[in-house]
């Protein structure tokens, strides 16, 4: 799909989300809520003592029954629909051709862990913190923007060999 069109529709979606629920789109929040719900189910007494989880527990209301979790459920279905329409639904590993699959999976794991920590510290991810934050003119959204993309460019230079064939890793 045309990038600008996709972006434009995404923007309209954010407006709709704010209009209906008063919340922006967010991804990391859904993960967090699921993790908290699981911890709460498995070890409720620990959950109540942990000062991160405790404020989010409400009596009679499962911590996973939030806007963000249902949003993520929708994302799963929406992605599948689009992939089917574009003929992209298949098992694969997405990577640059000059690194091994195993390496890619390790990198993915490390990257995921970093995001897990980063989103909780930064209170969001690119969609929740930055995109939705910028949509309401929040300073935190811009800090996130500068942080993620600024650091991204710097780290990209350092880790160039992962994505780009250089003379050193030409096979």
């Amino acid at each position: 799909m045309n990038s600008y069109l996709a972006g434009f529709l995404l923007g309209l979606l954010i407006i709709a989300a704010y209009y209906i629920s008063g919340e922006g789109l967010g991804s990391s929040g859904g993960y967090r809520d699921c993790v908290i719900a699981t911890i709460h189910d498995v070890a409720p007494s620990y959950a109540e003592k942990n000062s991160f989880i405790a404020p989010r527990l409400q009596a009679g209301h499962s911590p996973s029954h939030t806007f963000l979790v249902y949003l993520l459920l929708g994302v799963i279905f929406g992605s599948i629909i689009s992939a089917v329409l574009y003929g992209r639904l298949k098992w694969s590993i997405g990577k640059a051709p000059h690194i091994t699959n195993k390496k890619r999976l390790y990198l993915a794991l490390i990257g995921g862990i970093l995001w897990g920590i980063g989103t909780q510290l930064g209170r969001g991810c690119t969609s929740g913190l930055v995109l939705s934050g910028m949509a309401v003119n929040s300073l935190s959204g811009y800090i996130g923007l500068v942080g993620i993309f600024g650091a991204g460019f710097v780290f990209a230079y350092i880790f160039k060999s992962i994505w780009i064939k250089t003379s050193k890793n030409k096979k």
Partner: protein
Amino acid sequence: MRRLDFWILSLLFIGGVVSIFLDDIKPLPHIIGQKELLHQINLEGRYISTDEVAKMIMEKDPSLLLVDVRSPEEYNKYTLEGAMNIPYDKIMDKEYEAYLNQDVYTTVLFSNGSSLADQAWLTLTSYGYEGNKVMKGGLNEWYRTILHPQKPEGTVLDREAEKRYLFRKGAQIYFTGAQITTESAPKPKAQPVKPVIKRKKKEVTGGCG
């Protein structure tokens, strides 16, 4: 550049230009506020007595923020010590929002009686501004209780009333520099000091992603 790209980018450009001419964001009066508003009106918690205000002033309580909602002329003639002036018709101005919509200070609104301050409180609360109180009875009550406290009547020993009277006598001395013996006091000079609030501190809780 393809047609679709052009249209979308132009739309964004026009939107950006249009935005220059639009107003800054101010809270809009919201419908649901009504129920909550009625609830808050009924709560006596929004009133603070002249005694309490006098106490906070004398103790130099740093969390007190006095707001005189009358006109500048009346404010300049006489006001409470340390009070700032935000005339009623300007209470929704953006520059005062930091004072009126925060939970760092205890904001006490006052006027001559109660009605103007009450009106101000009503307006602010219906817009979702929190943390504001009204000094019950206003400056009239202040005059009656603090500047010219009445000796408790009757012969029955009412300890509360006695204590209150003594407190008010002390307050009277503080605010008017009156001698212990005299009853009438010269009009005190107003020393309004505008508090400087750098940032409004909201309570810190977790956010969401």
